[in-house]
């Protein structure tokens, strides 16, 4: 199996455009959450906060490519462009057949779907359906829009596992390169905010509803006062590359992907369980050939739900004990669903590179029910230069990735 490294990062997040804006915002302890009063227009909606991407002008993407894109594809394309630029990978490599794509979203564009059906239900006529509508709602919309816009002719995958998509795509890209099927893979997730996404969590009593007047105080991962998920949007893209290819090109290696695991937890459709999460982390460690003591930081999925944070906290304590630093970045970013795993993994790579572990925002009063964890409460230097990143989804899909600085 070939070694796989990260040579490019691209991030569009509630903290702004670019990996720089993301990491700078995280370092400064900024929140990307804001009030979204128009959510009140949806009957039964109690949550009124979200993490929205600021300041993107889609028109920088030519209409020929943009016409088939909803916001999630726009975010993904811009993030890919950033990652490719950082890696020094240009149109020639994109077109050489050895660069592929693994990018997914939770669903296609809900906004486009809503707009179409709002019109369709007036007279059930197809006569006003635009030709590019389907390209915005199909499940592989982001992946193909990226491939089309960037002239990529290699493999195009669109894994979709809701909130675990971000890490599953990176894992798939990792294994694809390790097996020698591609030299480079653009990997990650993308998500665009729609009130019905937040409504889905609200309906399950899993959305934050108590901080509508103080949006930057929620979500609160691992905190006693946590009251649920805050939905967000964005895209995080990692350019993975074989170590050989990176060396041949003289590319700067940002980190090495060394382990990946994903598994199903059939115990319950919605309730995470600690044993399955611990099992997933152990599998990822085994894949990396590493012991828990060789991990210097756990980047938790922790979305600030009552049950999820407890299950993950128990699992982390079971695998790593109470000495390894732990944090969740949902307090800064909210939960960008399919994009969350890859955005947070990007932040993890930057933490290793900048020797700065980021604490959990809004964690004022750690909930002892979440296990005996060593919560990061301030920015700390990195000890052991390897991390594990967790990423879970409704439906019992767990995934974990192990990343380390290149020795």
């Amino acid at each position, binding site marked *: 199996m070939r070694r796989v490294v990260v040579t490019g990062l691209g991030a569009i997040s509630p903290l702004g455009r670019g990996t720089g804006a993301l990491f700078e915002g995280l370092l400064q302890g900024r929140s990307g959450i804001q009030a979204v009063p128009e959510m009140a227009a949806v009957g039964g909606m109690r949550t009124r906060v979200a993490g929205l991407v600021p300041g993107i002008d889609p028109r920088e993407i030519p*209409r*020929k490519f943009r*016409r088939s894109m909803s916001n999630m594809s726009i975010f993904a394309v811009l993030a890919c462009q950033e990652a490719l630029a950082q890696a020094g990978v240009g149109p020639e490599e994109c077109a050489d057949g050895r660069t592929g794509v693994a990018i997914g979203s939770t669903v296609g564009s809900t906004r486009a779907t809503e707009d179409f059906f709002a019109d369709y239900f007036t007279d059930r006529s197809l*006569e*006003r*359906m*635009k*030709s*590019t509508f389907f390209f915005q709602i199909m499940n592989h919309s982001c992946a193909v829009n990226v491939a089309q816009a960037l002239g990529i002719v290699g493999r195009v995958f669109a894994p979709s596992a809701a909130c675990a998509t971000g890490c599953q795509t990176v894992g798939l890209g990792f294994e694809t390169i390790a097996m020698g099927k591609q030299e480079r893979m653009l990997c990650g997730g993308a998500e665009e905010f729609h009130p019905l996404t937040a409504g889905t969590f609200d309906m399950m009593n899993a959305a934050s509803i108590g901080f509508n007047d103080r949006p930057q105080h929620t979500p609160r991962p691992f905190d006693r006062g946590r009251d649920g998920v805050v939905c967000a949007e964005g895209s995080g893209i990692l350019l993975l590359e074989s170590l050989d290819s990176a060396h041949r090109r003289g590319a700067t290696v940002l980190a090495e992907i060394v382990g990946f695991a994903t598994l199903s937890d059939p115990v319950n459709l919605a309730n995470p369980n600690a044993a399955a999460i611990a099992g997933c982390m152990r599998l990822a460690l085994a894949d990396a050939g590493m012991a828990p003591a060789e991990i210097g930081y756990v980047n938790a999925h922790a979305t600030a739900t009552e049950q999820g944070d407890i299950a993950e906290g128990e699992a982390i304590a079971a695998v790593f004990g109470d000495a390894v630093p732990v944090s969740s970045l949902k307090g800064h970013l909210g939960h960008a669903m399919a994009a969350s795993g890859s955005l947070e993994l990007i932040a993890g790579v930057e933490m290793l590179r900048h020797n700065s572990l980021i604490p959990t925002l809004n964690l004022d009063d750690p909930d002892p029910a979440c296990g005996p964890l060593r919560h990061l409460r301030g920015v700390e230097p990195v000890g052991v230069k390897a991390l594990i990143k967790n990423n879970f989804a409704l439906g019992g899909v767990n995934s974990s990735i192990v990343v380390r600085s290149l020795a």
Partner: protein
Amino acid sequence: MTDQEIIELINTSLAEEFELALQEMTPDSTLFDELGLDSLDVVDLVIVLEGAFGFKIREQEAIRQIRTLGDIHRFVISKKLAA
């Protein structure tokens, strides 16, 4: 509507839909080569014209013969006259 008003409505509708510069839209402009449209855009072009003029033209054979912006002007004017 005068012919000139019809032409202006066509041009502004297409300029908005396809992000074209009005000053670059002449009757001789070919849809594919010069205005940069393709077969998917033509589907939407028909929808835009149907919306702007309130007629149904999707099934008209004459649509297939359209090559230039001037062809669209003449086609729509003839349709409006026939209405």
